[in-house]
């Protein structure tokens, strides 16, 4: 995947990003990868067992927030960095995905951005130029 698969949206108090995808499933996968890239720089450890996550919500906006928050939770509560993912089932209110995780190592790995939360602030998920577009702002 090219390095510029997302666009950072700048503001003094916020950090946001924009991603695109041909399908909503692809859009969500790309958003998660952008989120990983913004948050961490990790030395890849090779093969590791994927972990299953299931995220539910009331609508697609909430789904995006809950989905990205899940990776934040895994890091904050368990010290696990998500390195890759595959969405296995997608609907507007539910995602089942496999996530590849890596135990964060203070000596080698880097924390790039201290994200407190994924917000609804100016959150956008919609169609633009025949593509799905998502804009997400993070509380730092």
């Amino acid at each position, binding site marked *: 995947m090219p390095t510029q698969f997302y666009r950072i949206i700048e503001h003094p*108090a916020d950090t946001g990003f924009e991603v695109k995808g041909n399908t909503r499933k692809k859009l969500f996968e790309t958003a998660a990868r952008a989120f990983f890239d913004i948050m961490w720089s990790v030395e890849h450890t090779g093969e590791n067992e994927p972990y299953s996550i299931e995220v539910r919500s009331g609508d697609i906006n909430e789904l995006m927030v809950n989905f990205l928050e899940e990776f934040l*939770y895994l890091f904050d509560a368990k010290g696990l960095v998500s390195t890759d993912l595959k969405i296995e089932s997608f609907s507007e209110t539910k995602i089942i995905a496999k996530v590849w995780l890596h135990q964060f190592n203070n000596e080698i790995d880097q924390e790039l951005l201290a994200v407190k939360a994924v917000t609804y*602030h100016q959150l956008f998920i919609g169609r633009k130029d025949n593509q799905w577009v998502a804009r997400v702002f993070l509380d730092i």
Partner: protein
Amino acid sequence: MKELSIHNLKQIDQYRWLLPRQGKMRTDGMLFLDRTLLEYIKNDKSITQVANVAWLPGIVGRSLAMPDMHQGYGFPIGGVAAFDPEKGVVSPGGVGYDINCGVRLLRSTLEKGEIASSIPELVESLFANIPTGVGSRQRHLKLNKQELKKVLESGAPWAVKKGFGIKDDLLHIEEGGSLDWADPGTVSDKALDRGQAQLGTLGSGNHFVEVGFVDKIFDRKLASGIGLFENQVTVIIHTGSRGLGHQVCGDYIRILQNASRKYGFDLPDRELCCAPINSPEGKKYLAAMAAAANFAFANRQIITEEVRQTFEQVLGTGRKKFGLDLVYDVCHNIAKYETHTVDGKPQEVVVHRKGATRAFPANHPKVPEAYRETGQPVLIPGDMGRYSYVLVGTEQGMHEAFGSTCHGAGRIMSRHAAKKFAKGHNVTAELAEMGVRVKGAGRATLVEEIPQAYKDVEDVVRVVHEAGLARKVARLRPMGVIKG
């Protein structure tokens, strides 16, 4: 609500800008700014956010913005608003993700010359003893969930009971370091998971511990009243409720979005989701928020003890020789039940302060005995290279702003712009030239937090002082800083 701009404001005097009620606003907005500070917000959405807050049901008085205002989530940062407990609402967007993020100030009996040569070792040792950085974990304090719930129920008194600090500390914390309506049963397992290893840790971003000194006194009588003198060594601790608070906020934004629909609130921004204070959802949020606030009080209390132990270790003397008594601890992201005079009568309201600090005047019953004559001390940290301020609350602030003032300098550069600006600069060396020894968990944080990324806090403090919301007492300069 259409986007509002500075053209919607009506200048009242040099420091006051009225945002007249319009559209669905239930009340006026009032912004405390001078022309310099107004320039900083002219391109963000914070004026619209002041109007959005004025739209919320049961708002009492005006929707206020302190001089360090800028765009936030839901409320603007620097936003203050009070709500009627019977007819009003509570909103997580009026508190923020870092529930009870706050600042505490310690004063030593030493003068700066007595520790100048120990600063490098103090900084190294503070960094070694206080877990810092994103996802930092406490190695020495293992809590099971049952014990963690006791922390959430009690706050700073739990920490003191466990040997972190002394009982006297509790007299110098807003609300005694404990919100008694906290209910740990309203906090999710996920939030508990995130908090379990993070009590007694600093975290990242703009959180810090700073060893500094009093470099300027503006009012000798007030300074002496709160135990400050020129060249005195001080310590500032700035942190909050860590991942636990962030999760509580996120959880209740989800719950209160449903509640907003249930109660038929027509909201201009999803982050302003809310519930009636007296509804089951509103009560639950307030109970969970208070639990997270108690976690933050305990967190700062534990770090205080770690600071005192580090001073003992480095200076090789007992703490009676250096003091480090707690001056005061203030919250700057909180919603609380307080009594204020509304239309000439005392009324209980729920005051939301989002990036704003309580600043109660002399003789107020909530101000500790020691400060009855001076007013409540308020700590306004600046960036890591320049200075911070100590102020006290005033009657005018009580009358005009529910006893509130600003909370900091506020960023002017995005994190990306700060990185770009700092390219080719050795931030640590440049700060050392300014007389500040800095150690951070990662270069990224240090670069993002360069002094140039922030407004000069003096500009903000000047406005609160001149507008009469708080009164300048002293200025502190940093000597050594640890950052997350």
